[in-house]
């Protein structure tokens, strides 16, 4: 049975090869306070903004702080939040990420786990599925007892059991699962074998930058964001251009310069090795040519190299500036939405003021939608200049 489960999980994961998010879609990452740390989700949002500039793909991160089911066990608390923080913003894909917060240091009975973790999380998946939402689950990450010695033993066992509970829910509801527990466990084990004292967590149990990068990559992989291929091809002999993952216009060829406009439908991420961002120019006079994109100089290339195609530095052009801006903007947007949740939806009901709350919520959401509409730059003038 267990073998069958793993096969089913594998099948679910394989089914995610194509990007899950289409233009105009919204991704919601909902979870406990661990999600509210934003490190991973900001990277994911920025990655989507770079891979799909101007596509209208948006991200909302709904941290339901202190909703560690196993510790707070607030009956009836989760479903209203699922409506208010997740379904109300009309997601196409939802990642549910629970189990990482307030881990108990003493053994948790199976019945308790069933009542306060498995059942509400299963119900949440079914509720989202019924609303036509594609759901992804993440297991909680594994623990590093070197970073959190108080959780050694029982805490580790609890976390392993929670992770298994999530895998079981994934099988039962036929949704893909992102097994962060296994990912981080394997990486931690490998790291410790090479470097004593290695940890993917800081002393508070928060993922380090390296840990966040691992999780980000895994999440993007699950979303089908496995690398882009963008290339502009210019024939300087006839003054034409064409693009893959971009459009090329306004090709102008002179004696010592070639200029064109490249409008990218996808941009590379500095840290994603699979992203290929190319330019190929044939028909140039032999010798070195300086390449500038916008006002950023990218170096000199020989005519031969340009004719063969040059892989441009993912972290070096104006797209790198766009990436920084996208990250900053994603961070602010996540902060706004977290405030929106904490301030306007996680509240003690006051029926007399409900119309005013709804009005304020509508304005807040309108602001966020307008904030999302901001486009990161994705079209630049490219200039090749013949060096003497």
């Amino acid at each position, binding site marked *: 049975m267990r073998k069958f489960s793993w096969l089913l999980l594998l099948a679910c994961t394989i089914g995610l090869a194509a990007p899950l998010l289409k233009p105009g879609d919204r991704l919601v990452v909902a979870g406990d306070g661990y999600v509210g740390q934003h490190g991973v989700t900001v990277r994911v949002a920025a990655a989507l903004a770079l891979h799909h500039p101007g596509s209208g793909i948006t991200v909302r991160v709904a941290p339901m702080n202190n909703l560690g089911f196993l510790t707070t066990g607030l009956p009836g608390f989760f479903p209203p939040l699922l409506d208010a923080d997740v379904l109300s913003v009309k997601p196409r894909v939802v990642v549910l990420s629970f189990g990482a917060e307030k881990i108990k240091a003493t053994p948790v009975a199976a019945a308790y786990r069933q009542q306060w973790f498995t059942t509400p999380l299963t119900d949440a998946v079914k509720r989202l599925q019924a609303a036509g939402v594609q759901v992804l689950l993440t297991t909680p990450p594994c623990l590093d007892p070197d970073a959190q010695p108080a959780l050694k033993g029982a805490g580790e066992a609890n976390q392993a059991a929670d992770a298994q509970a999530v895998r079981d829910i994934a099988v039962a509801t036929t949704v893909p699962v992102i097994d962060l527990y296994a990912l981080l466990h394997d990486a931690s084990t490998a790291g410790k074998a090479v470097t004593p004292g290695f940890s993917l967590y800081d002393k508070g149990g928060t993922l380090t930058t390296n840990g966040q990068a691992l999780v980000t990559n895994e999440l993007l992989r699950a979303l089908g964001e496995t690398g882009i291929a963008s290339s502009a091809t210019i024939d300087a002999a006839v003054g034409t251009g064409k693009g893959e993952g971009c459009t090329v216009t306004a090709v102008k060829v002179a004696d010592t310069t070639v200029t064109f406009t490249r409008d990218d439908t996808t941009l590379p991420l500095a840290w994603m090795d699979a992203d290929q961002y190319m330019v190929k120019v044939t028909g140039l006079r032999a010798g070195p040519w300086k390449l500038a994109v916008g006002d950023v100089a990218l170096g000199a290339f020989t005519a031969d190299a340009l004719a063969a195609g040059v892989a441009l530095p993912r972290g070096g052009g104006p797209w790198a500036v766009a990436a920084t801006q996208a990250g900053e903007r994603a961070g602010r947007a996540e902060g*706004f939405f977290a*405030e929106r949740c904490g301030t306007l939806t996680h*509240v*003690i009901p*006051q029926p*007399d003021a409900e119309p*005013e709350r709804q*009005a304020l919520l509508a304005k807040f959401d*309108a602001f966020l939608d307008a904030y999302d509409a901001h486009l990161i730059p994705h079209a630049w003038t490219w200039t090749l200049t013949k060096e003497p």
Partner: protein
Amino acid sequence: MRRTLCLFLLLLGLALHAAPLLQEGDRMVFCGDSITDQMIYTRLVMDYLALRYPGVHVVFYNTGISGSTAGGWKGGFADHVLALKPTVVSICLGMNDGEYKPFDQQIADGYAANMSDLVRQAKGGGAKVVLLTPGVIDDDTINPTRGKGIYNDTLGKLATTIEGLAAREGAPVFNIHTLMLDVETRAKAATPGFTMIPDGVHPAPPGHVLMAYGLLKALDLLTPAASVTVDTATRTTVPARCTVTDLNVTADKVTFTRTDAALPTYLPPEAVTALGKLTPVLAELNDYRLTVTGLAAGTWALTVEKDAVGTFTADELAHGVNLGLLPGPWTRLAKTVDDRASLASRQYYRVYHGLGARHFPQVADADTPTLQALTGEMETARQAYIAKLVTAYEAGERARAEIPAAARTWQWTLTRVP
């Protein structure tokens, strides 16, 4: 009509009781740091007023801000406190003002000047002021980097500073430092490992009971709850702040119906356990007496409604027993009142802290005309929501003072134990 008369008599009694600072219709603001922000001693004061003076309507606002100092409050006092148009303001600051250091006269002078400024601002805004000195730390539980072994000395001197300021300004004051330090010292001597300040700075409920006592004392609101003397020989009663009807006396049983106009307040059970025998403060807070004379010698069991309150000798009953710390229907009523005060506190906390402008996108975040327009619309909607919540909160606060007479009318039965 009878209820109106009772309320009139209560208000008359309140007015005659040495002019306590809080009166019908008052608006009281608790100003302080994170200890006020804990919403515990403040809630206990709210409970006390509702239970001891049912029908007296006072709206309470908790404006405690974590980490704040008197100096920090100077700039925000008008916006956070005076804007609420308070008639009474309590100020309890100083824990952070001493900077968790050995006593420094320069720091103390600055603290005194800042507190003086706050008192004058409050008075200038038409409010009466009541002061609580800073409390204590627990040297056994405080983070060693925060004043272990030295800071209570600093706090004691700052407390003396506040007493001097209060004398100069003619403001009521209570030195909670002296009271809390005394109780803490004696409790630790009696029970090694005792603490009423688990993190060293922020009191647990037992500590807050002492703070509430101090504030009620300074407000001159401490008054005994209802009491009655029953003379079984003459079958007469002498009630105080209650009414007694249907008195029946037999050789083995005494029964009567009693409606209280001044009830025991809510005391957290852990406070009763920790401090009940250590300090007379709790008994003073809940002085709820029954005196019965003329009973046959022996032991008598007291039941109120279905609650077995306790057993007493005839001699004890003849001298009068305080039931305020014993379980009875008043305990449940007090808990209900406390739950409502807790909810009210959290509701106001949400308005005060949760809906601050800092939680919303600012103009600086709006980098397009559309976003700028939406920022303005959001601010208008935020203000409308806050206004509605405050209106609802104030209505709830007024309603909280109403404890129906039916809820404080109980059947009392004394039965001779064979």
